[in-house]
């Protein structure tokens, strides 16, 4: 019976609400406002800053030397590409020669670029066991790995799942002007992955032993944390056209040098119409060659400056005194009988 409450209320000598700035909604507050001045200044400022950033990133991007060589079509005979690639007997060596247009400063990154490969395909991206990769006791946790989970006799496949199974297995041997150059494949994976995500006491087992081979095989004497190609591959790409780091060249390559790449063309992108390419690239602060960001910033900057001008013109043409009561609708009514 809630009446006891009201009884209490009425008996209380004073139930006046206590005054506080908060309870009266009178907290000190600032009221920023879009005056013509702030609008123009904001647009101009953004315009100038964006143009500067745009120029800087564009020049950084221009410095980058990038060689892209798509080799998937040229490295197989015309005809039955899939049959060729699936046949384990055929010789899959393919030699490509590239001319370097500009001086490339070390380190030069070697990437492979695959397109049409949906590493973000739902069925694919879920087919892995992070527990298994991390903890020795959990090697049998393979329920998400579907049919690449266990061998016929029930032993867990390490690493399990479609992702690991489909690991890239083309190899690149590089020589510049006929001199073989060592490709450094150390530290191509994230340090955090090596240290914390992939166990140093977990070794590959039962991997690629099924009847259908998806890709690379792993050396069973090397722990997962050292299998950098695997770690790189397991960081699934966000988009269907992606690059992955293959290795680094620690020496500069001069302009007009001939780079010869001997490719062991093993990986099957033919069955789904994907493409493969080899990429050699230098880097700057902006990452890889990327004109988009510079162009975008320049465009935006100019747009903002243009808007600033536009607003100046508009404000000049249609002046309005701020806070003029004659603009209130009920005052306007009597002026121009429209309402």
């Amino acid at each position, binding site marked *: 019976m809630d009446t006891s409450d009201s009884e209490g209320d009425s008996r209380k000598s004073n*139930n006046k609400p206590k005054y506080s700035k908060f309870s009266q909604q009178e907290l000190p507050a600032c009221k*920023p406002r879009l005056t013509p001045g702030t609008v123009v200044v904001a647009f101009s400022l953004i315009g100038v800053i964006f143009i500067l950033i745009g120029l800087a990133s564009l020049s950084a991007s221009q410095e980058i030397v990038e060689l892209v060589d798509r080799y998937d079509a040229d490295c197989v005979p015309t005809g039955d590409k899939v049959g060729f690639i699936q046949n384990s007997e055929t010789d899959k060596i393919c030699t490509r020669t590239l001319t370097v247009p500009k001086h490339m400063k070390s380190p030069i990154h070697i990437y492979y670029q695959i397109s049409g490969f949906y590493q973000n395909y739902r069925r694919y991206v879920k087919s*892995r066991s992070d527990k298994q990769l991390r903890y020795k006791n959990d090697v049998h946790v393979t329920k998400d790995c579907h049919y690449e989970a266990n061998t016929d006799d029930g032993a867990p496949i390490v690493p399990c799942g479609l992702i690991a199974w489909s690991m890239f297995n083309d190899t690149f041997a590089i020589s510049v002007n006929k001199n073989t150059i060592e490709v450094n494949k150390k530290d191509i994976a994230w340090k955090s992955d090596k240290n914390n995500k992939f166990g140093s006491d977990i070794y590959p087992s039962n991997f690629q032993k099924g009847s259908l081979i998806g890709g690379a095989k792993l050396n069973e004497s090397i722990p997962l944390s050292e299998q950098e190609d695997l770690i790189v591959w397991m960081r699934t790409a*966000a988009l269907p056209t992606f690059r992955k780091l293959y290795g680094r060249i620690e020496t500069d390559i001069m302009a007009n040098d001939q780079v010869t790449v001997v490719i062991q063309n093993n990986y099957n992108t033919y069955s*789904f119409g994907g493409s493969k390419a080899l990429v050699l690239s230098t880097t700057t602060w902006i990452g890889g060659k990327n004109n*988009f960001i510079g162009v975008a910033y320049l465009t935006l900057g100019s747009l903002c400056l243009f808007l600033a001008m536009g607003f100046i013109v508009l404000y000049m043409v249609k002046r309005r005194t701020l806070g003029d009561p004659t603009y209130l*609708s009920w005052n306007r009514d009597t002026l121009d*009988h429209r309402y």
Partner: protein
Amino acid sequence: MRPERQSPPPREATTGELEAMDVPVKLPDPVPSPISRQSPSVGLSMSRSLRSVGDAPSITFAADIRSGTRAESNASSSFESFRRAGSRPGAVARLPSRRSASERAGSQRDLRDEDARFVYINDAARTNAPPAKFPDNAVRTTKYSILTFIPRNLYEQFHRVAYVYFLILAALNQVPQLGVFSPVASVLPLAFVLGVTAVKDAYEDWRRHRSDENENNRTASVFVNGVFQPKRWKEIQVGELVRVVANETLPCDMVLVATSDPTGVAYVQTINLDGESNLKTRYAKKETMSTPTEALAGLKNTAWAIGVAVYTGRDTKVMLNSSGAPSKRSRLETHMNRETIVLAVVLVLLCSLVSLLAGIWLHNHDDELGVIPFFRKKDFSDPNKVENYNWYGTGAQVVFTFMMAVIQFQVMIPIALFISMELVRVGQAYFMVQDKHLFDDKRQAKFQCRALNINEDLGQIKYVFSDKTGTLTENRMEFRCASVHGGDFSETDGGEEDGHAVTADGVVLRPKTAVKTDPKLMALLKDGTGAKADAAREFFLTLVTCNTIVPIIADDEADPAAKLVEYQGESPDEQALVYAAAAYGYTLVERTSGHTIVDVFGNRQRFDVLGLHDFDSDRKRMSVIIGCPDKTVKLFVKGADNSMLGIIDKTMNTDVVHATEKHLHSYSSLGLRTLVIGTRELSQAEFEEWQMAYDKASTALLGRGGLLRGVAADIERNLRFLGASGIEDKLQDGVPEAIEKLRQSGIKVWVLTGDKQETAISIGYSCKLLTREMTQIVINSNSMESCRKGIDDAIAVVNKLRSLSTDSPRVPLALIIDGNSLVYIFDTDQEDKFFPTSSAISLFTKFFINMKTSIFPGANDVSMIQMADVGIGISGQEGRQAVMASDFAMGQFRFLVPLLLVHGHWNYQRMGYMILYNFYRNATFVFVLFWYVLYTGFTLTTAITEWSSVLYSVIYTAVPTIIVAILDKDLGRRTLLKYPQLYGAGQREESYNLRLFIFIMTDSIWQSLTIFFIPYLAYRKSTIDGASLGDLWTLSVVILVNIHLAMDVIRWNWITHTAIWGSIIATLICVMIIDSIPILPGFWAIYKVMGTRLFWALLLAVIVVGMIPHFAAKAIREHFIPNDIQIAREMENSRDSGDALI
């Protein structure tokens, strides 16, 4: 609240001229008690809600008790006699076994046996023996018990369709083929939302439980084994005798059997029930047990009373009436449903598109699916038997994709919106309650927010329908004018306030309220002779006797030698009349059931009250039969003028009648409430005849009320005209100003009153409802035909005025319409064809249809309050019933102005923006997910981690919008009150409409495009991994929607800053935590990606590109097409800077 007001509410709703009469004694069907003093059905007045409308539970007696007690003396029901009666176990009372709808049919209804409740007095065992199933007296107002809490609370929460939708999706998600989220993540948002509400409900219920416990464990004195013993309230049973001493509270509904007063009177105060501090009389009677006195009423001025418990526990009237007001939905919420449906359609479209594209993709790649590395349909683990793995055919895949898409994009319907709205309303209610401008200092009454789901309706009110008495007025009557024997005595200005103390038994008695007197009338009373003076004396004799006022004598704090006389009664009009009589020398000193003692100019006289006919709404008058000290028997009648003029003997002294009629007219024009007073001397024969008829009628079992009315009507005739009185009901403070503000703000104000037309118009002027510029249209018809003509004329007038006034199309108009005409209009409206022109419909039905978003402040009209979209109760002197039924309650009518113009405006503006923003922020997120799905082979993968997906709408972005919706103010209080027209923004739905919705949704699509495609274009053909890109998108969305909100915040205080920037930081922290879990695929991505400059460059670009349209549109809108609020804000700013300069 007086019972008369509760009589069938539709009458008041439909008949403009309300309050049928201004007759002081206002009681429904009289349920007479044998001593014919006053209807005990005052009990009604204590009930709290509609349920009690017209229900005065009748109680009939089994024959044995009636015959058994009839022999006993009427006058004394002493404790002894009670013991005799009580100790006889055969005593049985028959009461309605269950208070039911049938009771409302009428108090005189004969009860069927199976409906009857047999109460064996002082024999609880027999009373409660089967088949009777009476509950014990324990009350339980809690909704839940520990066992039922979870199921019942969930059941109630799932009444929201949206929650069912989320539940179905969470269930679908558990199907392996459809598992978009991990099981925990999928139920988390719903569980969170349900959990918050459940905790809130549990807390409220626990508080109710505690107060129940307190009530149940109070003790009462119960008659057990011949002695009164303390017993806990919850153990009291029907049939037990309970003794209550002064100032105690009654534990249950009981019928009084004896009191300390020899006449069996007990006075109860019902302040706990309806807030009325007046004392009400209850009688301990044998023949006809009267209305039970309700639980929780307090016993006053009576040393003790003994009653038999008849209704206990959940059968008590308090419990039956404590069902809350019907729940209402705000207009905004109703409109919100429309946009929710639009979003649902968009959701279905998105999902269909995705599943269609997925189907096409699968079809095109059909040959390759078997072996391609990222699909590999075929399972080769058994080389002899190659099977399809997890593949049900393209068709099934399409269906799965559709379902998964619904699960993935489910937040398109914002799950957090509902809980946010609830929280925001709690916050807004807090500020309304705390507002010192809504606090009534005089009554120490806080603003009350009783309904928590229509706050924002306060900002969209178009019509205010207001009761007059007690709402606009104080309901504190003051005697102003008297017309006696054709002479007008209203020159009270010259007279001084006369307390007129009288001395009785050596004690000075002073009436509590002094009344100004007219010296001429005073002189006439004291020294006058002749017909006029006699009439004047009888006039005041009528005033002092013909009422139900009880004088209460209390110590005078100012003067220890004197005593204060306070007149307690149920009608403020009667109080005013008795105080006036006291000022003129007729002081009521004592009243018992049989007589009154009046001090006439220092001379004590005893008047025997031989009979009393209560007020009823048919007769509209009340009369007493008085045995005067000079042994004559007189009938004194007072009543409404139209009912009295009919029974006046017009042959006598026509001059007086005409003069008085003229006076009545002029009193009405002054806005006074008028009463006409008449008398007749009864001969011995007449009296005896009456007494016989009366006795017969009052002991009748069937149709008692009607018989008594007949008896009254027979005797009330051929009256000699004494005069008329004019009582002023003062307007509350600030009412004219408030009404003027409301009118300026574009709200149409209707005042419903029971006064005569002249009175009504005059009050209309005095409260500034009507002004001189207004063209008045009066519709006052007696027939359907004339009503129709009236309407036609009115339309013609309106059209003419419209065409004439070219300078302003707004012609100030006022419509004055009486109850009969309204009834005709209602009838014809339902028949529909009666209206000749469509404009008539717009003129009249508009007013009714548009009761949508109308507001009804009223002190006592429960049904109106509940019918209105927003019911506002004035917690005035009239009691709490209106308050209990209202959505909001406040102390003064004038608080309506700050409530609507300030809080209503804020609430609406805040809530409207919050709903739009919630739609926008969830849609933005869903669109980002959607664009990505187009690049994943349409498989509903998200780069954004599932945890971020589910936390997005409940944690990442929920707090700022709630805080802003509680705290932001578009305009200051001063500005809003200075320019009431600003209220029009809410009436025109400027803060929430389809245009704004489309606008913000376009913005949402644009922002999602920038969030997705700028990083996409930059990271195309790069080494970016899904988790890193997902983190970038998560942060972009959260920062962008928060900056969007920040850009629309008008007042930044430290709380707003904390909420907005804090939630961006909280998001970053959450993302970091998620990325620190090694067994998630995205481990360490945020740290890695934040180390690249490209990330920051992209984030900046996304934010700027995303905000440019909103920023530019805002700049253009504010400067080139400013609305009133914008202009007012600029005025506010320039004023602020002006203040600063000074």
